[in-house]
């Protein structure tokens, strides 16, 4: 456990204790197997307790874990083949967005994913997973081809947000995201969007206009970063924890709000503890929805996606209270 969270310390301490007992037992030749078994049970129940009741801010930390699997980790496990295609044909190839054609459970699909780097060097190359306009324009270009050739689209969301620098402003970050939203809403092919890590505001949403929206168990998807929210609300970025709770952005919140369709289970402690298991869960859930969506006609796919968007929002009119699905 290279990167340890505070809330994981009790678990680690107990594991250390077990290890000490085992060492002691071996050295002294004393049978402590019963005591050790008891402690191991305790570890298991502690894990269930801690990981089963993570607070939003703890989930943020897991979602941002430096070793959390990124798209390139999942790709070889999810796809029988993946051919990465590059460039927006206009200005550059944005390395914070990967796109291409893949074979998924025997079906040819178009894949678009945001990619954070691992380590500083790769993070600089990928702009910490924050796409510039050319990233969104590459996405639209490739998704347009999916529409042209009738391929389902799978998107994977993992970004702190869209790039927020002068270059992004100069090349029309707002326009690029808006076009992406509009394009995704119009396709006649199945679109499945999965938040695999951070879903940071408009920059994440740009890939989030799916017929189905899935979220990994410890991912979050928010209108604003908790730190920025704290800064606005309380002029205090250290109150990010409180902001995280207020924003209701966990997978569980979004399922309840009717935005997310299903939560993809992660191994105890987070996806970084078992990449293969996470990929397998992810693969099964996406495949399940893909099979369902493939039953739909192209027009129905488009219309239902529109209606799904259309229903997001809570308001009242005169005395009538409009309660959208999923909201209690």
């Amino acid at each position, binding site marked *: 456990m290279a990167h340890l969270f505070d809330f994981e310390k009790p678990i680690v301490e107990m594991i250390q204790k077990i290890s000490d007992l085992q060492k002691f037992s071996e050295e002294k030749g004393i049978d402590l197997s019963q005591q050790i078994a008891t402690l191991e049970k305790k570890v298991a129940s502690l894990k269930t307790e801690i990981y089963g009741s993570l607070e939003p801010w703890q989930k943020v930390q897991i979602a941002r874990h430096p070793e959390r699997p990124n798209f390139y980790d999942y790709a070889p496990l999810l796809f029988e083949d993946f051919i990465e295609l590059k460039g927006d044909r206009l200005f550059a190839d944005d390395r914070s967005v990967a796109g291409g054609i893949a074979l998924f459970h025997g079906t040819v699909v178009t894949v678009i994913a945001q990619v954070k780097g691992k380590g500083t060097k790769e993070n600089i190359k990928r702009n910490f997973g924050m796409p510039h306009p050319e990233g969104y324009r590459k996405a639209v270009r490739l998704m347009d081809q999916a529409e042209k050739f009738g391929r389902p689209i799978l998107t994977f969301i993992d970004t702190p947000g*869209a790039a*927020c*620098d*002068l270059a*992004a*402003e*100069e*090349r*029309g*970050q*707002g*326009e690029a*995201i*808006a*076009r992406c*939203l*509009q*394009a*995704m*809403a*119009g396709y006649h092919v199945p679109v499945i969007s999965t938040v695999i890590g951070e879903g940071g*505001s*408009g920059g994440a*949403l*740009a890939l*989030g*206009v799916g017929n189905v929206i899935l979220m990994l168990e410890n991912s979050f*998807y*928010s*209108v*604003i970063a908790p730190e*920025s*929210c704290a800064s*606005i*609300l309380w002029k205090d970025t250290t109150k990010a924890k409180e902001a995280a709770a*207020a*924003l*209701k*952005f966990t997978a569980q*919140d*979004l399922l309840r*709000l009717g*935005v997310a369709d299903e939560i993809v289970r992660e191994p105890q402690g987070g996806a970084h503890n078992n990449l293969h298991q996470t990929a397998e869960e992810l693969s099964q859930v996406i495949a399940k929805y893909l099979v369902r969506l493939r039953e739909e006609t192209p027009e129905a796919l488009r219309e239902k996606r*529109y209606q799904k*968007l*259309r229903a*997001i*929002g*809570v*308001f*009242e*009119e*005169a*005395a009538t*209270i409009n309660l959208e699905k999923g*909201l209690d």
Partner: protein
Amino acid sequence: MFKDIFRKTKYVTIQAAPIQKRSPSEDGQQKPLIIKKKELPDGLWVKCPKCGEVLFTKNLDENARVCTACEYHFRITARARLGLLVDENSFEEWDAEMLTQDPMEFPGYPDKLVVAQEKSGLLEGVLTGQAKIEGVPVVLAFNEGNFMMGSMGSVVGEKIVRAIERAIELRLPVVIFSTSGGARMQEGILSLYQMAKTSAALGRLAEHHLLYISVLTDPTFGGVTASYASLGDIQIAEPNALIGFTGPRVIKQTMKQELPKGAQTAEFNQEHGLIDLIVGRVQMRSALARLLRYHQEGAKYGASV
């Protein structure tokens, strides 16, 4: 001209339920909604923040609140814009009674809404409806900057989408005036998805070959820039309006990058290919009228205007 029309449309009667405070800490303490009549600036003069010229309020109002010395555009309300733009008595407001809830039970949101309603004289941050501009029928929406900085929550998104959907039914063009700080944090993910919802509705409008003109006014940022404000067939901006995705303060804080002088102005955006036309507020009505007229269905080739 400005003042007269402004007066005509200023005192709107809003008959709708006040926002219900849902925060448990304030249970029972329902504060009634008070729609204050917004007064015209009561001073006799105002100082232009750009050129420093001292302007008589009367002259400023008569010039659509554009500085008569340097053409600095003072910010104005949604209703004032409406008054400047549409033919007399032609405006039919839509969905005026739609009210925000507090789905996230977000700290302080109900209070903020009440303050915003008092400050703006509107129940929510956008005004939508149908009107005529120089005789041409059009669907209109105006963000209200005084309502939580024109931020987009569920009601703003829903009202805009409904306006667009009605435009499709009526086969009318749509003009939206944006002024916004972005998505409304207090409605969380629901607010974020209003970006997708409005963009999708505009996609449908486009499929029906109906015109959409986006008019960007000072300031337009964030989720609004990254949705309906950037999707116009024709993009118009008011002179010197600040327009961008990320605000200059955030860019400075997060990127340690000082923006060059003039960055994110309407003119900067036009140089970078994002704006068709920069139109002064005084000329806006006639500019829109020309564009609308040239896009009327009868104007398709084969017919004359």
